[in-house]
């Protein structure tokens, strides 16, 4: 049998009129990252709160590290770390005090708790800020402190609820590094996100949820095959050269695909894009564009947005479903 560190079956939870979880099954293999992808209100946070024992489901069962979440929540709490969507650090306490408090609540001795706090602060680049109250921290520093707080007890299973929402791209990459390091040192990570790019960068497997239901469970590659892989988008500086750009893109298109003008709602007109299969397409396009002397103001490879993923998986767009 597979070594599943998180196993949930048929989770249901209703808040008033909202069916937050409508029969969710989850499975995460030990030592891997499971990405739970979905829009706001899909039930991601509710699922994490159930698994981290903060919330009892109305129906269903869940096991974390082999322990029954409903029957032995206190034992589950010993092996999990949770970082919520909103950094739940204590603003009046310093970085050190925040972490030492967690250590003492985990029954470490005062000295061990202090040592662990210093170690984590150094690791998260907060050593210098360690003696300042957390209310003086920037958003990114708070996030890091919050994540450090969830790692004090060397958890086997780490739950990260939208760990990078609201962070700038550089800080996001830092957070990704933290997640990879945790996995490298033996932890299993379940993270929720609204970005396919993030799930693709970190997860071994991705679960897509919508309206409290799992609508897909696949590897990142498998999911990308289903929703279409990368898209190459080019925006010429001179709009009159757009037809030439379309020709260039057609030449590097994935089999059976053609380049189109970007006319999707919300996107700025004046660019063209094409589905491609590999990074070679990018190099090919660059060579051809420079040979033709076409100046560009944008040239990028994109993964499909969450909207596009949903469109493909459900045949409807997210915005339509909200109506």
């Amino acid at each position, binding site marked *: 049998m597979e070594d599943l560190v998180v196993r949930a079956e048929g989770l249901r939870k209703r808040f008033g009129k909202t069916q937050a979880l409508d029969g969710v099954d989850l499975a995460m293999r030990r030592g891997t990252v499971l990405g739970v992808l979905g829009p706001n209100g899909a039930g991601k946070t509710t699922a994490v*709160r159930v698994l*981290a*024992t*903060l*919330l009892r489901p109305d129906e269903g069962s869940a096991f974390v590290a082999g322990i029954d979440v409903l029957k032995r929540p*206190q*034992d589950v*709490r*010993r*092996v*999990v*770390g*949770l970082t*919520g969507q*909103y*950094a*739940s*650090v*204590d*603003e*009046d*306490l310093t970085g050190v*005090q925040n972490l030492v*408090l*967690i250590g*003492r*609540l*985990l*029954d*470490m*001795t005062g000295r061990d708790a202090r040592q662990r706090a210093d*170690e984590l602060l*150094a*690791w*998260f*680049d907060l050593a210098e800020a360690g003696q300042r*109250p957390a209310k003086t921290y920037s958003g990114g520093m708070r996030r*890091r402190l919050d994540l450090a*707080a969830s*790692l004090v*007890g*060397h*958890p*086997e299973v780490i739950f990260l609820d939208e760990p990078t929402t609201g962070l700038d791209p550089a800080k996001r990459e*830092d957070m990704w*590094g*933290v997640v*990879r*390091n945790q996995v*490298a*040192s*033996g*932890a299993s990570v379940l993270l929720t996100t609204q970005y396919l790019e993030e799930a693709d960068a970190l997860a071994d497997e991705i679960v897509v949820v919508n309206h409290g239901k799992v609508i897909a469970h696949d590897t990142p590659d498998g999911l990308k095959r289903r929703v279409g892989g990368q898209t190459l988008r080019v925006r010429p500086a001179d709009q009159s050269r757009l037809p030439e750009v379309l020709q260039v893109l057609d030449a590097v298109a994935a089999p059976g695909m053609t380049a189109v003008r970007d006319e999707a709602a919300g996107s700025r007109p004046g660019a063209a894009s094409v589905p491609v299969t590999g990074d070679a397409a990018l190099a090919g396009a660059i060579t051809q564009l420079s040979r033709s002397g076409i100046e560009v103001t944008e040239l990028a490879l994109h993964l499909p947005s969450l909207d596009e993923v949903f469109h493909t998986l459900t045949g409807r767009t997210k915005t339509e479903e909200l109506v």
Partner: protein
Amino acid sequence: MSTQTATPPALTHHSVAPDRPKRSMPALIRHSAALAQRSLIKTIRTPEALIDVTIQPVIFLLLFTYLFGGAIADGDRHAYLQFLLPGMLAQSLAMGGVALGQNLNADIEKGVFDRFRSLPISRSAPLVGAVLADVIRYLTVCVVMLSFGTIMGFRVETGVVPAIAAVALSIGFGLCFCWISVWVGMLARTSGAVQGIMFLLVLPLTFGSNVFVSSETLPGWLQAFVAVNPITPLVGAIRGLLVGGPVAGDLLQTLAWMAGLLVVFVPLALRAYAKRA
């Protein structure tokens, strides 16, 4: 951040929880003490949050002694101060507990308690810890009122031991009474609402009592309320311990009230906390 480059070996994961040293103290007390320390740090860091147990009771004491004292006690302000101060001590203790419910409500709103709930500690430890830390506020009320009262001319007429007993009783009552505030803090939607609800309770209890005037001067229906008001025996006991007079009856009644408050409001507060996800 240098996270990608350096991975200290200390961060390796144990497949079992780290060894826990055997401690004699029960987990609830140990965890509550750690959480009480957290509340104390917050108190020290925001001294302005102590206004309700320092400047406010002093202003009340000045106001009632010099503005109303002459009229109430036929011009004998010293006699009125001797009568008033023990009562105002009780009032300030009841009011001092209001902030606790407000703070807990704010903590829950901010998500700090989510972290505690995800840790393997007793569900009640965060509440018990916060209540324990409130001892410092009740002690502050006692010290401030007795010191400032002494400057105004108040004199303890009994002795050191009864005076210490009065302070101990005050703090003890404060610790029991504040569970009402904790309960309201768990139920109310905002910390402003906690204050509103608590003052709706505390004002009639403290003014409709023997704090400011002797209950013989009151109309019959109000005397009936004063007689069943828990603040009345508390004031009687503190008065007896500080300026003399009978103590035993009021003291027993107060202790009974304290036990009653704990029996009713601790379970209510814990249940409301458990429900509030």
